[in-house]
């Protein structure tokens, strides 16, 4: 039985890597850096332990009040949801058509610097206004209703889509552009045949993604009276205290958004990756669960 002798020797010889410095300290510093602002915020917002303790009960009361939902207003709700969809759709169309040319002007590889700089600042300036704030500014000019909401969503979409599209354009392969330039193509031809075929699939996928986001945004815009289903929800919850009906509206809205998200994300996946080879039920399943093998084309941006 000489084997066990080997073990202590071996452990003796192998040098342990040195402990990383400061790890212990770092952990404490990070913890303090997290906890201190948290406490400051909680104090500032007057969130006391008793309030936190009471919250789950209050939320359950609300959920209990919403259930069972009252479906009597369904046709009216569907109308408003459709209106939200229309607002989102037109907003996306505005954003897509106007951001497309701007994206070329904002891309550093196809436009000169003195053009890209102002266009980029313009895009980030309009992006800085949230849709709701834009809609609040537009309502005095265009009146209450979906028109102001559409313009607000459209304008914000120009900003976000312009930025994303210009990033796609900056990522294209220079080869085709140079080839067209070398064979005497004009600037427009370089863009049309050198850039657009490379960038369009991704850009269209972004348009669709923006449509998904815009549906959520337009659903909310109703809260301030800019058309759509939001007015119904806030009215039922806040001013009328009609919880069962609010529950029905909320469920219908969520189902619609879920449905469109599912359809849109499977189209996006197909645009970006071509055909998916999975069997049909598996595809539906993965689309429903959002768990596809292909790389995610999502990016979260509000």
């Amino acid at each position, binding site marked *: 039985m000489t084997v066990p002798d080997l073990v202590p020797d071996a452990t003796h010889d192998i040098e342990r890597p040195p402990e990383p410095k400061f790890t212990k300290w770092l952990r404490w510093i990070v913890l303090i850096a*997290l906890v201190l602002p*948290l406490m400051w915020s909680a104090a500032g*917002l007057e969130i006391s332990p008793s309030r936190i303790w009471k919250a789950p009960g209050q939320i359950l009361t609300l959920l209990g009040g919403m259930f069972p939902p009252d479906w009597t207003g369904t046709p009216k709700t569907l109308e408003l949801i459709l209106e939200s969809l229309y607002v989102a759709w037109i907003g996306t169309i505005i954003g897509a058509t106007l951001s497309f040319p701007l994206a070329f002007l904002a891309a550093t590889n196809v436009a000169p610097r003195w053009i890209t700089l102002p266009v980029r600042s313009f895009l980030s300036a309009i992006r800085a206004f949230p849709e709701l704030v834009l809609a609040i500014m537009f309502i005095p000019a*265009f009146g209450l209703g979906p028109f102001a909401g*559409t313009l607000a969503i459209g304008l914000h979409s120009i900003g976000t889509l312009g930025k994303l599209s210009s990033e796609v354009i900056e990522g294209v392969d220079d080869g085709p552009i140079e080839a067209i330039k070398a064979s005497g193509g004009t600037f427009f031809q370089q863009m049309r045949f050198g850039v657009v075929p490379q960038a369009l699939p991704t850009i269209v996928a972004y348009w669709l993604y923006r449509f998904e986001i815009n549906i959520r945004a337009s659903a*909310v815009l109703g809260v301030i009276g800019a058309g759509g289903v939001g007015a119904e929800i806030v009215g039922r*919850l*806040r001013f009328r205290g009609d919880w069962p009906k609010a529950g029905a509206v909320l469920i219908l809205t969520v189902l619609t958004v879920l449905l469109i998200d599912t359809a849109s994300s499977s189209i996006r996946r197909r645009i970006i990756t071509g055909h998916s080879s999975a069997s049909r039920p598996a595809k539906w399943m993965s689309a429903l669960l959002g768990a596809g093998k292909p790389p995610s084309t999502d990016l979260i941006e509000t």
Partner: protein
Amino acid sequence: MTAPQDSLTPAAMGTIQRPEPPIQVSKLAVPLVAAIAGFAVAGLSGSQPVAWGLLIGAATAAFLYWQNLARSPALLVATVVAGIASLSIFDAILESRTTVIEWTLSARASLGWVLFGLVVGFAFSWASRPALPIQGVIARSIATSVAFGLASFLALQAGSSIGYIPALRGREIDAGAIQDLGTAFYVQGSAIIGGIGLSAAIALRVRNGALFAGAASLTMTLVAVNQIDFSIRELLRSFTRIGELADQFWPPDWAWPKTIGQPEAVHIFEPFVETLQIAVIGATIGCILAVPIAFSASRPTAPNYATYWFAKSFMNVVRTIPDLFWGILFATAVGFGSPFAGALAMVMFSLSIMAKLLSETVDSIDLGPLEAAKSSGSRHWQMVQYSAYPQVAPNYIAYALYIFELNIRASVVIGIVGAGGIGRLLDERRNFFQWDQVMAIVMVIFAAVILIEVFSIWIRKKIV
């Protein structure tokens, strides 16, 4: 996947392929001119259904001819006749109605379009007969007619419930008034039905989804523009009013927050601090709570399938509800105007984003360390802690910073729905029509958002 298109040609049968006959524009012009003339005559004589039926049938026939899908005169004539017949049926059933358009009436009126779809589907697939068996021709005809019928049914149903059929809007329904179907009805109805049906037929024939998508988007845009009364003219007219509006908005009123003569005078920066605090709580708590959900919602680290499914569905449903809806819900639950509601809403918002981003990252981790941990006898959550978490920790921190940025942006507006922060102030001033004060707040929001963006770009550059 591209095979069907090739197998349609006779080459597959071993014969030499005949070159396609060139399209003769002069021949195409004949049906078009005839259609326009017929449309004009029928329209002038006051028979709307015949006019529109002729137009739709002739347009379809011209398309079939032009695209080389059907060349036989009999088929083309049959298409035109079917157009007129189907729209007449459609119209006759609708005109005979005595009530508002409801489900059964829509279904019956759609029969006209079913007939049209049958003929068009037949015309579309007849030419590809040698390769396509006769059952295939029948199947495609039926599929096309179903597409047309469904499109018509939906268009009618949507039209009667949301009012693109002119007579059936709002109070008029209650009054029981039923007007004639106007030109607008035919234009929109034809656009919807023809657009969806034809593009379905074409998509079936050439297997091209982009065409279908294009037609469907165009249809959707037409309908949407009409529904929400969106017009460029209105937009331009509103621009003329900008002068008087500018007077109300400009100059921004900076002084009011201090001079307001109330006991609880609101300083403009106080709500801003509140906004920041909401964002801090939302991001921190949300990111922490997201960790177990993300690991449960990812295949390699989910303890079992039930948990995986539950976490995944929870994540998807939470993500579907917009942050401001969370704001409304929590405001209702814990009290309107309270920043606590905003903080809760931001927790849900951060949680949904972080869970999604993190679980997708966990999906793609290296499985080696996980197996090593498992084979050396660690429990499930030990495995996650020591083999999975270290792999995604850098991403986690990057996402957390990003989410903090999103949180600040989102918490700026969350007050508008009654959940505390600067948004509450904005909403309040708006309700008093104090536009110069609104302007001041908006400018501060604008500056803050730009500042945050610059700062976060700088920090990301520092870290990466």
